[in-house]
């Protein structure tokens, strides 16, 4: 009896030895399939012409190297149709995350805010989710008079789309979590 009990000590001893005898294994690098590395806002002038691309790329996610931002120049008094593309470029080929947003359209909304108060153009959502509320993957952008402004594009997850002003593009009462918030310099000339 006593001897068998003494054997009990072999158990923890064995555990210690077996667990400590070698170096820590290499961790498995997680597959960051949810990561959004890239936002592209493509503006195509209605009635033809060259598309303008605004691009924000941060391949290594939060922290690490700084993101790369490409701004663009638009023509005054022109109406553009805008398309948002979200990519995860750590995957090959790049994964199109905007499709996920489209699938969960009711839970997402993009907001577009101009810093320059004298922006005289027009801006509208050009799409809708299953409930008839805007999503903002597609937009219409009328530039108006020449000026420079900053444009902040925000993607909210689980916003309250029925709150006052939200479906008109006012972010104030939207709530929810921010999945994306990027700012571009826009030159209208």
């Amino acid at each position, binding site marked *: 009896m*006593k001897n068998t*009990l003494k054997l*009990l*000590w072999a158990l*923890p001893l064995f*555990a*210690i030895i077996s*667990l*400590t005898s070698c*170096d*820590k294994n*290499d*961790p*498995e*690098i*997680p*597959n*960051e*399939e*949810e990561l*959004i*590395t890239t*936002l592209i806002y493509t503006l195509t002038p209605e009635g033809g012409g060259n598309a303008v691309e605004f691009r*924000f790329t*941060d*391949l*290594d*996610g*939060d*922290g*690490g*190297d*700084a*993101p790369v931002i490409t701004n663009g120049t638009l023509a005054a008094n022109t109406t553009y149709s805008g398309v948002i593309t979200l990519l995860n470029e*750590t995957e090959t080929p790049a994964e199109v995350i905007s499709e*996920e*947003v489209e*699938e*969960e359209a009711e839970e997402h909304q993009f907001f577009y805010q101009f810093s320059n108060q004298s922006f005289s153009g027009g801006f509208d959502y050009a799409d809708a989710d299953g409930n008839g509320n805007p999503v903002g993957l597609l937009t219409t952008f009328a530039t108006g008079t020449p000026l420079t402004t900053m444009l902040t594009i*925000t993607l*909210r*997850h*689980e916003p309250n789309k029925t709150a006052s002003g939200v479906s008109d593009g006012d972010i104030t009462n939207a*709530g*929810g*979590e*921010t*999945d*994306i*918030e*990027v700012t571009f310099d826009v030159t209208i000339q």
Partner: protein
Amino acid sequence: MPGGAHFYMSSFRTFFLFPFFLFPLLGIGQNCTLKIQGKLTDEGTGIPMAYATVYVEEVQAGVAADSSGNYSIPNLCASSYHIQYRHIGCEAKTIFVDLRKDTTINVRMHHHDELVDEVVIHEAHDDHGAQASVSIQKEQISEIANKDLSEMLESMTGVSAIKTGAGISKPVIHGLSGNRVTILNNGIAQSGQQWGNDHAPEIDPYVADHLSVIKGAGALAYMGSSLGGVVLVEPADIGNDPHLHGDVNYIFQTNGLGHTVNAKLEKHDKWAAWRISGTAKVFGDHTAPSYYLTNTGKREFNGALQLEKKFSSKWNMKLYYSEFFTEIGVLRGSHIGNLTDLEQAIGRDEPFFTEDHFSYSINAPKQQVQHHLLKLESNHIFNEHQSLHIRYGGQLNNRKEFDIRRGERTDIPALSLSQWDQFGEVLYRHFFDHGSRLKTGAQFKFVDNTNNPETGILPLIPDYRSYQTAAFAIYQKEEKRAFYEFGARYDFTHLQAVTISSSLPRKIERFDHNFHNYSLSAGFRYELLRNLKLNFDAGHVLRSPQVNELYSQGLHQGVAGIEEGNRNLKNERSIKTVLSLDWNVKNKLFVQALGYYQYIKNFIYLQPEDEFRLTIRGAFPLFTYNQTDATIAGADLLVSYEPIESIRLLAKYSFLQGDDISNEQPLVYMPSNNLFGSFSYSIKDGEKRKNTSVSVNGRYVFKQTNLNADQDLLPPPNGYFLLGASAGMSFKLKKATLRLSLNGENLLNTRYRDYLNRQRYFADDLGWNLSVRTNVTF
């Protein structure tokens, strides 16, 4: 005069001349000349428990102690007895004795629980020597078993809790918490993801017979860091009673419509002594005074098994296993994506996502934690002077945290960590003839921490292994009115971290660190007068930086900041001195005053940098781990006044100030000063009705004013007052005791926010709550 309960009334006048001891039948024809005698004292003050009643269940009769707490029960037979000790205002204590010869049983009652310090309790075990400490006993633990460990500890002076909403709390001792506080569960240092402010200790306090906090500087016998203090969670030994005993506890609370069920069974069987216990808690959404705190429900399921086997008078073994599982919801409105969200969520009248109805469901954001602990202990007593103790502890901790995620990934944890922990120690004790003793030991600890890649997110802290070896020696000497203690400890830690780079291409890097820590302590206790005791201790303790401080990498969602570790951190080096005074004025007024000063060189803290990190989710402020020199000074004061036996007034005050002396600014997250007062009234026991009392209490927490405006997102909340009340009553049933009690908190439904609750940015703290408890002990 039917029943035993009235006996003691008469013996006020005389002692032992009137020993209402009735053995009508048992005495005949047997050798019934045996005697049990002893002395009853209060554990907190050492004062004799005058006129306490001593009742022998088997013969349904009893005696009263005299004015010096002495009792004597004559004419007992050679048989086994359950002896129950009672005194006004205390929970009864039952002791089993298998009587073969005249026996002395000295009993310590819990009359002045608020004054109990470990120095008194553990003198016999020499565990904490001259360290200043406070504790909570079994009856109180069971009374508030619906609370977390840290919430229970919070009732002690000098101890606070850092919280994340209603369900998550961590103890803070004299301003320090997390990596700086060690929690010993059954003598094994709790191991898990202790670095997180929102990671509560995975311990069910119901298993403990007492909880204590060592505030002094040099609890050197324990693995882990004692720089900020040590919390002890200790179940008592099972005892020698061959009958089945146990208790069942049920508490319903109105806030969160919470149910708590505990049960405990124990028996000293021939093959071994055993105890099993279990706890289940189910809470729904808690409520603030004017709205539901959506998604703050909680589930908890815990179990424990304790076995003790005595092979001979020289050898015994103990086994302990416990399992802890919890699922805790985090306030939906406190989940934010970036700094803009945070600014919007802050200062709202009502948090975002507040539902207008109650729910038991727990959705993301939430935490799921599972913790296993196995302890094996072998004690060898060679002779009166020497003993050897071998102990093994193994722990497994699995933590998963769920966030609100896109693309049906909410069910995939955003953080998933597994930690293995192996611990072994050998202790040797030597009691010398001239009243001194030596305790020395060697310890080994191994930790293996792994991120599970299921998250699809780069880990916040890396995978790592750590190996720690340590040795210590403590020498104590007792002379007439003085007690000295000296201790020394050495720790060597080897840390092996394996990180994944934050820049592309992702690569795996390995880093090794070695840390040498040494600690020294000295304690001194002196009885200046019979009623005045002085306690002084001083300690020099080092703490090595932990893996989160060295290697954190990534976004801390709750505070919308990017946290970066610092690989060059050095050991923290602390000197703490504690001076305390216990003064007993005519056995009616008790004063405990404690003052402390702590200097910490290379104090590790999170420094907000001027720089912002731009990400696709916007710009985040950057916080890096940095070192500075800090001081923490404070005082704890406790006054207990008992004008007559049935009335007790209690007042407690804690004051603390923490400063970063290199940068000339206050330390953040230091507890606010607070004041507590209570009035309790105990009613004399009736024939069946025992231990009846009512009490009212108030707690005022001052505004934290020692903080600069630029050190926090919001200024610290205003001071607040909370009113509470409780009432309890026990009934003697045939073979059991039934206890009913009520406990009310925040009865004025005050709207308040607490500086140490990290959810104060988003929501009010809890509204009123009433807990109803039923307990059966048999």
